[in-house]
């Protein structure tokens, strides 16, 4: 893999994570349990779709093949998306969404902070913009983990279950492949495995306050970075891409 190819895939993956999570959160618009959460959720979704545009816009420039941010989002097939499996997991109930945001964003903040120091200047700029937003999201998710975990016996049990259900998707975040290694070497990207102890420490601190237990690291799902997705993903992009598939080239 050439230096340029690895960088392009690295930037596209960041776009894929942001877009897929943004799409998941968009699915939840009008379904939140209360107005405050409705506004919060829509704001988060908007931030992620905005971040996806920045990453895809940069990827389009790097590729230089005439593809646009919209082409990356709407005209690639499922196997060409290389997002983490965690972000494509279905919304489930409110606690599941909170758990997904909490586990992913605890990692994403560390990833973005590290990227602000990488040698790819443009990516460092995008990361500096995005990390401010994600810190704000994470604070919100952490507060909900604590409120639900340290809440009623029912909310505690369900929050605990949500964390346990999603835990097997967290290993993939720290498993570097050839693209991650090349980007770390050539552009000063993060050493993913090195982020794990800090992630674990932060997640554990919130879980302790929430009176929740953290699962053991057992067998972990992986495959997202190779374009191998969970069953849920096909439905997600089928809905997301419907308009452009049914009416190619359709514009607002």
């Amino acid at each position, binding site marked *: 893999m050439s230096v340029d190819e690895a960088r392009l895939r690295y930037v596209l993956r960041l776009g894929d994570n942001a877009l897929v999570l943004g799409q998941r959160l968009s699915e939840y618009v009008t379904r939140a349990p209360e*107005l*405050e959460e409705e*506004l*919060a959720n829509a*704001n988060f979704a*908007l*931030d*992620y*779709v*905005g*971040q996806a*545009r*920045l990453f895809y816009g940069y990827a389009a420039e790097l590729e230089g093949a005439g593809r646009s941010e919209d082409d990356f989002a709407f005209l690639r097939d499922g196997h060409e998306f290389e997002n983490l499996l965690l972000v494509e997991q279905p919304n489930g109930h409110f606690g599941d969404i909170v758990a997904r945001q909490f586990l992913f964003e605890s990692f994403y903040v560390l990833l973005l902070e590290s990227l602000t120091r990488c040698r790819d*200047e*443009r990516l*460092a*700029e*995008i990361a*500096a*913009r*995005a990390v*401010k*937003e994600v810190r*704000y999201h994470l604070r*919100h998710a952490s507060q909900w983990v604590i409120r639900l975990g340290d809440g009623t016996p029912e909310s505690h049990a369900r929050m605990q279950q949500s964390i346990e259900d999603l835990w097997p998707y967290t290993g993939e975040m720290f498993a570097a492949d050839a693209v991650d290694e090349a980007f770390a070497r050539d552009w000063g990207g993060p050493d993913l495995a090195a982020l794990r102890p800090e992630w674990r420490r932060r997640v554990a601190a919130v879980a302790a306050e929430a009176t929740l237990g953290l699962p053991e690291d057992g067998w972990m799902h992986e495959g997202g970075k190779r374009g191998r997705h969970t069953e849920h993903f096909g439905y997600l992009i089928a809905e997301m891409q419907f308009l452009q598939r049914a009416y190619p080239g359709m514009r607002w």
Partner: protein
Amino acid sequence: MPAEQLQRLTKEDVLGWLEEVADPEIPVLSVVDLGVIRDVRVHADAVEVSVTPTYSGCPAMEVIEQRVEAALAQRGVPATIRRVLSPPWTTDWLSEEGRRKLREFGIAPPGRRGLDLPVACPRCRSLDTGRVSEFGSTPCKSAWRCNACLEPFEHFKCI
């Protein structure tokens, strides 16, 4: 505009025009008050305006760019818009004028980053206020309530 006239344009002229361009979501603020106009450069054939987004997903961004272009086009000046990300926008760039306008409009302006300032009610100025929600009608605002005059209000978040 003929080239020689274009050459006599100054950055201040252009900024003056842009002070009349309203933010689409908080129309009492101009794009200059908001602090999103980062630079203005007069080139031989066009004026280049650098604009920065407040939030990554801010839907107002494209409208702002169109309005800036239109404001220049109205005066016969061709414009190119450059989108810049770095350094990222913060509320510290809101002008004093912008803060005053926000308060008059009923939105509590942001404090200063790094300082944990109390939020004053834009209506009665009481500091006895409480946050109802971290999120509001736009990404940049949160929802508050004044315990003194009992009015709800929005606060421009400090980021």
